[in-house]
């Protein structure tokens, strides 16, 4: 059999895994691999301008397609730069395989040029990592890496390839299957526990379904919908689950947690049964753990046993894949549900409707004053919803407003950094999704603070013809930081004011992308339409009212039913005294 170099084995293995696109940035020790990639056409190599962005693009690709995203970077600084993306993918369970170059085997440990302990650096932020020490192990290792990344609770896997391994030759044999004795994820839930769950659901009077990112990852949207519709139980979504259940569905209560809707938080607090599906009771959802839904029994379905009873006590734990477990649960319920569920749930729904109407999400947009961020996002949503867009966000106020006002209807259309809260995630993630779906509309809702953490990728966007539309909600602040300072630090804006941002229009144009600026309420719709019509990457800079705060808000460590719904009186007074309450802005960028 023909002998292939390690680099050729790498490329062949990726082809066998069905990889179409990789996000990469070269360096000394990975040149052999790049050289082989350069001479083939099956795998598209997208050159990024920073390794962190390569990682986020791989994440965006993975989140949008459900297939593992692939990044290839070099040793040393290449590796340290990608650590943020790995940590982000690990927190949000994103299937991703990252290949890092390493100095030649003989030099490992010698403090060689551009050497870093890639295995040590990535250990706490990957699901698993490999150092390939023998070219004969390379194909098997790559197979295992993809298997681990995409099965069980997905996550990032790092494969560290020393330079000599990419040059040495070996016979190429790609294994058909993998068996790892320490790794056997459970997919089927215990039938006995599922029966207990069904009984609890039938007995509950104020039940709530609480879905998380696991529903997206296991593709269980249809099953969640069947469960909810069959039993008429309301559905709360975490930030990671948006789109996995239609946002405008009559049974949807919207997002819960720190900036969730009033009804979602009240519902879970006063519920008598929580059906948690692929969610992990994150502190941004539970608030004060000791007072989290005090009268509820909790059913928890999750493929990762460590998620169960990590933060809160669970009465019916079911370890398994959301889709498999829900199929079984729905089967049991279908045979048990009798009578009119709508009628049965009426008292609960009356209460929910009361909460829903008492404090719906709202904002006030005066036509002659500065644009409100919520208004802008609402308009983007209204004008693009028919095109089934993929929406990415950065991290901060704009992310929460996007979560509140952009009602996604399909899974895998929402790309956001939930667990790690990585500013700079949105733009490269959008590019990754666009690389996967060239013909789809991909939007990025960013903040002026966040977007500046990865603007260099404008070059990638232009050269690779990735026409993402980036809306910059420009409030000249790290808005969420400013909000916390207004609420909890008496309005002292320590390092939250961004007084020297670039002109985003000129910045985009400098890279060969398009730039637009929308300044008036009356221009918003036309601006959005104009941006959509441009067949290029576009930065749309939208200066907005600077002091808008994101509500409802549960202060960190607060209780879910004790939400702040508007600026507290002392803040209103303080802002009134300094003229901030008026929607006037003296420090416009343009």
């Amino acid at each position, binding site marked *: 059999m023909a002998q292939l170099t390690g680099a050729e084995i790498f490329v062949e293995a990726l082809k066998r895994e069905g990889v179409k696109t990789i996000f990469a940035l070269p360096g000394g020790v990975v040149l052999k691999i790049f050289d082989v990639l350069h001479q083939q056409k099956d795998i598209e190599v997208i050159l990024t301008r920073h390794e962190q962005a390569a990682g986020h693009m791989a994440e965006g690709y993975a989140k949008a397609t459900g297939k593992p995203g692939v990044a290839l970077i070099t040793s040393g600084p290449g590796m340290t730069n990608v650590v943020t993306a790995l940590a982000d993918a690990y927190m949000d369970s994103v299937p991703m395989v990252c290949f890092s170059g390493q100095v030649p085997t003989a030099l490992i440990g010698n403090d060689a040029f551009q050497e870093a302990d890639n*295995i*040590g650096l990535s*250990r*706490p932020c990957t*699901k*698993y*990592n490999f*150092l390939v020490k023998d070219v004969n192990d390379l194909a098997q290792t790559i197979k295992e890496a993809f298997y*681990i990344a995409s099965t069980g609770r997905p996550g990032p896997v790092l494969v560290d390839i020393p330079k000599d391994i990419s040059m040495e030759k070996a016979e190429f044999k790609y294994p058909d299957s993998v068996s*790892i*004795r*320490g*790794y056997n994820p459970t997919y089927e839930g215990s039938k006995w526990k599922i029966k207990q769950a069904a009984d609890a659901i039938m007995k509950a009077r104020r039940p709530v379904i609480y879905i998380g990112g696991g529903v997206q990852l296991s593709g269980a949207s249809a099953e969640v919908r069947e469960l909810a519709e069959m039993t008429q139980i309301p559905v709360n979504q975490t930030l990671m689950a948006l789109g996995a259940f239609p946002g405008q569905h009559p049974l949807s209560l919207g997002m819960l947690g720190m900036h969730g809707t009033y009804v979602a938080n009240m519902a879970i607090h006063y519920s008598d049964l929580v059906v948690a599906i692929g969610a992990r009771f994150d502190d941004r959802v539970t608030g004060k753990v000791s007072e989290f839904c005090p009268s509820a029994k909790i059913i928890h379905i999750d493929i*990762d*046993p*460590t998620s*169960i*009873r*990590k933060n809160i006590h669970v009465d019916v734990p079911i370890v398994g894949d959301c889709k498999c477990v829900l199929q079984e649960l729905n089967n049991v319920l279908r045979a048990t549900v009798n009578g009119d569920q709508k009628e049965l749930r009426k008292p609960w729904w009356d209460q929910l409707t009361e909460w829903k109407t008492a404090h719906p999400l709202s904002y006030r947009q005066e036509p002659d004053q500065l644009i409100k961020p919520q208004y802008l996002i609402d308009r983007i949503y209204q004008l693009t919803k028919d095109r089934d867009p993929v929406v990415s966000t950065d991290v901060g106020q704009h992310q929460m407003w996007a979560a509140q006002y952009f009602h996604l209807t399909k899974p895998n259309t929402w790309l956001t950094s939930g667990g790690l809260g990585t500013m700079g995630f949105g733009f490269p993630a959008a590019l990754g999704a666009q690389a996967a779906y060239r013909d789809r509309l991909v939007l990025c809702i960013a903040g002026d603070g966040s977007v500046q953490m990865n603007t260099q990728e404008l070059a990638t966007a232009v050269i690779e013809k990735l026409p993402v539309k980036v809306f910059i909600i420009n409030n000249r602040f790290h808005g969420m930081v400013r909000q916390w300072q207004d609420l909890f630090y008496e309005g002292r804006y320590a390092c939250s004011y961004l007084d020297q941002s670039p002109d985003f229009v000129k910045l985009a144009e400098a890279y060969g992308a398009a730039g637009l600026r929308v300044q008036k309420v009356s221009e918003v719709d036309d601006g959005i339409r104009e941006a959509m019509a441009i067949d290029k990457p576009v930065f749309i800079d939208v200066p907005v009212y600077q002091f808008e705060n994101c509500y409802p808000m549960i202060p960190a460590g607060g209780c879910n039913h004790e939400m702040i719904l508007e600026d507290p009186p002392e803040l209103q007074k303080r802002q009134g005294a300094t003229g901030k309450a008026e929607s006037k802005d003296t420090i416009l960028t343009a």
Partner: protein
Amino acid sequence: MEHIISVTLENKSGALSRVAGLFSGRGFNIESLSVAPTLDPSVSMMTVVTNGDERIIEQILKQLNKIIDVIKVVDLNESDAVSRESALIKVHARSEDRAEALRIADIFRANVIDSSPTSYTIEVTGDVQKIHAIIQLLQPLGIKEIVRTGRIAIAREPVRTVATQSRPLAKAN
């Protein structure tokens, strides 16, 4: 509460640091940890002594199981187990103390494995209380140096009452 956890894991580089990293990264306690290969050279056996309430121990067991290099995790507190620890104690033993040092070693069935004109090195094996006790008794003589293995533990084989009836004969075909 103290728990002794027995962890079967892949005997390869990095596996130990995954376990150690889990404990430090998640703020779990390690009181002692000892690890060595088993009869199967591809597998190591690790004994971890840790403490925490029920919830923390449940997390530790689950998190250990989640590590891909970990093959099996057993909480030895759930069954009856025997545990042992060894220590090497180098104690001052000038002429007037030499007899006393030997007497103490004898009481604890410890062995003297090295001797110099001014010191003895004593090897002792036992449960934690025994190690503590000998250290306490040797301290007045002056301990120069001490090295301990950390605990290792193994589950007791369940003692079944032996059935007296003879085994049924194999069915004749």
